[in-house]
């Protein structure tokens, strides 16, 4: 039954799994950090935000986030290949793919963060201000901690999305399980390998979701 798992295929499968993990991890971490900052900026510069700055909000929300989000990921990824090459010196491999993955998911994650922050009641922000907090203290000590359950859920959703996107990235030189499924499963017509890659990805997604939910429960005291 496991005849198809020749030593070569086994090795390729391990490498591919690692590459997928690598892409997800790199782009996940960078997206979480940059996207969190962008999400906070989207929220606080908004009309009813803590520090409304109209022009900045228009640039961030209307121009950067909306335009990036309206380009289909497959196209965005190809379009960003030269940019990835400029940054990491090559357009091939998981690190190069991570550049496009990250740029593609930051706006998505930032929107989710913005929504989570919007759910923090204005009364809490007022309370923090009345107690003499600076705006920075309101953001760091009140808004972000209060929105943490939502932010954790947003990270989970984003990482799951990244696992899917990373398969697509594999097709344009990123490697990973997507590449594996395509090369072995599709072009060499080896359905067992196709199914195995799918199973590995399903397990990855399940694990991420489980861990994410567990963390969200832990930080949620509402």
């Amino acid at each position: 039954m496991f005849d198809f798992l020749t030593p070569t295929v086994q090795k390729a499968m391990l490498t591919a799994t690692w590459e997928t993990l690598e892409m997800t991890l790199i782009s996940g971490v960078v997206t979480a950090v940059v996207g969190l900052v962008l999400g906070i900026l989207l929220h606080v510069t908004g009309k009813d935000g803590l520090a409304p700055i109209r022009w900045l909000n228009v640039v961030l929300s209307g121009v950067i986030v909306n335009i990036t989000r309206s380009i289909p990921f497959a196209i965005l990824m190809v379009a960003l290949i030269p940019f990835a090459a400029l940054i990491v010196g090559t357009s091939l491999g998981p690190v190069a793919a991570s550049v496009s993955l990250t740029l593609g998911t930051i706006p998505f994650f930032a929107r989710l963060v913005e929504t989570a922050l919007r759910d923090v009641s204005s009364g809490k922000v007022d309370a923090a201000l009345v107690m003499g907090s600076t705006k920075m203290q309101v953001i760091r000590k009140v808004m972000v901690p209060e929105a943490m359950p939502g932010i954790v859920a947003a990270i989970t959703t984003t990482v799951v999305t990244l696992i899917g996107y990373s398969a697509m990235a594999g097709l344009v030189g990123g490697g990973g399980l997507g590449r594996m499924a395509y090369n072995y499963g599709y072009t060499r017509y080896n359905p067992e390998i196709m199914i195995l890659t799918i199973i590995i990805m399903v397990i990855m997604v399940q694990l991420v979701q489980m861990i994410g939910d567990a963390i969200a429960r832990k930080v949620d005291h509402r």
Partner: protein
Amino acid sequence: MITVSDLRKVYRQGNNEVVALAGVSLEVPTGKIHGIVGHSGAGKSTLVRCLTLLDQPTSGTVAVNGKELTNVSASELRDARRRIGMVFQHANLFDSRTTEENVGYPLELTGTPKNEIKTKVAQLLELVGLDKFAKAYPSQLSGGQRQRVGIARALATDPDVLLCDEPTSALDPKTTDEILELVKELRGRLNITVLIITHEMHVVKQACDSVSLLEGGKIVEHGDIASVISNAKGRLAQTLMPLPGDAPRSAGSGTILDLLYTGDQATEPVISSLSRQFNIDVNVLAGSVEQLSDQQYAHLRIQLPAGINEQEIINHLQSNGIAVTVKGTK
């Protein structure tokens, strides 16, 4: 002491100007509890937001112990805000923090050392009777307990003024009285000035030394409880000491009088002495007698017999310090 002078707030709505506060002035001396009552739309919320400078007033000033909050820099304003402790309708606690972390929050802001925060928070929690709930999260507390945490948090910076915005409106009657008792007790222990904004007359009766009626962005009536109640023509007297809702406006014949009186007179047998002195039968149609902040107050509707010199009786009552309103004859 908190001093508010000629506070105005005008909002622009398109081409229209909406006057939310039309010149509010008031002064609450140290150690007093002052109530501001008004219906929704009277400008209470705007007043609260302007007092704490959450909204910038269009003109006018707010000062705590002579120190102005208006027209100061952002960092001076943050310092000034620590002189005002604020209690909110829904407590507005931070759900991600335990009771002690919530109460310690204002102290964290100023970089107070951890052990000092710990001591202070323990004292505050004992003061509001929640020392056993230090590690609980707000979601594990009842509404009354959450409000106690809110009060402890408001007191963390040793403010001069405690500003309570509808502090009991989300609570049941029993918890309301407990919270008001706590506020009165704290006023006694800390000699703090308290300002309570509310739509509940019950709160004023239970806790306040003086009261202002806010209407259309203006204070239309104000004074200490005894003086507003004895002003029979005022609206506060009618709402603070209402007659029962179904008080008859007439019964038989004879003039109907509404009497409002306070303190010493309330304990006097006003009606029976009236009967004896003028040798008449007085019919009591409705009435309420209440004890508010150690004072007796009475509001009675009586009917005099027909065919007597009622002006003489009215004069007699008024000379005894009783406010009389003639309701009509039948």
